[in-house]
């Protein structure tokens, strides 16, 4: 017997009481060509808004709050934080 309704729990963001959280950010992470697809950003992202698709990281801007953790943990400094226009 188990709790049948549970799915594999890797958290993904979803719309909450405050709506989509993408418009909270003041800086946005931009992945450059140096990305080696090591999954470090995916592991540390507190919101689960970055993941490796193919061999390159992809940011889901709808929910990214622009905290900058991914840019700091990247071992090859492939993520740049760009001012939001």
């Amino acid at each position, binding site marked *: 017997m188990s709790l049948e309704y549970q799915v594999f*729990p890797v958290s993904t963001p979803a719309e909450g009481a405050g709506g989509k959280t993408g418009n909270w950010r003041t800086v946005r992470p931009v992945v450059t060509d140096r990305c080696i697809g090591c999954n470090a950003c995916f592991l540390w992202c*507190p919101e689960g808004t970055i993941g490796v698709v193919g061999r390159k990281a992809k940011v889901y801007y709808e929910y990214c709050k622009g905290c900058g953790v991914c840019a700091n943990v990247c071992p090859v400094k492939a993520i740049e934080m760009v001012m939001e226009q």
Partner: protein
Amino acid sequence: MTMRMMGMALGNNVALIVVAGCSSVIQGMGPKNSYGYPALNIAFAAGPAAASGMWRAFKQRNKDVTVVVWAGDGGTADIGFASLSGAAERNENFIYVCVDNEAYMNSGGQRSGSTPHGAVTPTTPEGKKENKKELLFLMLDHHVPYAATASVGYPHDLMDKLRRAKTIEGFRYLQVLTPDPYGWLFDPSRTAEVGKLAVQTCYWPLLEVVNGRVQVSNESLHCLRKETRRPLRDFLSVQGRYKRLNDQDYKELESYVDYTWDRILKLMRT
């Protein structure tokens, strides 16, 4: 952050008991704002007691479910310690995760029993005068089958420890250092970096104790000798809460680190 890693590590069949804190604020009205786990929100002092009841209820219904208590350091070291101590002594079958951000961060960063010496908080504007409460050693004195510390700077280590904890029967205690940008006064983007610095400067020991046998994790092995430790100032200088630290306080913090590791070495020999 730690919550997400725990989800990855533990997999299915987990029920969560959230003791009052920031984690009870994150979850809101269902279905959109809630956790992926069944969660019970409960008062500070009642977390371990509720977990004891919950795993017994699951056992009676023949369900193989891991019960996890998720508590902050205020709920562990100060308010919830009586019921935690009781549950550990009875060796109840659940995992207790203490998310140690070293103050009551949800209510405004007041000092807790786990705030380190010299840290400035709203209630200790001149810096705290006492040392941190030794929660890991306190739990070891309850003869629990599993006790460990981890840091969000090293997620693989944290996930390994949680997976190992899931396979063990009995009371399992895990204390995770979670740097808090707003209470520790550093830039939020450096959270992982500060978590790593705490381990590298040996301020935060990474170890796990299985049935009384002490195993220091690979990330902390350099701390066993005093010469190979990174200077503590690297960890303190990135945080604003240590800005009032004078030389004497710094020496006291250093001697506190030495004392912690002496104690760990002594435990390893026995």
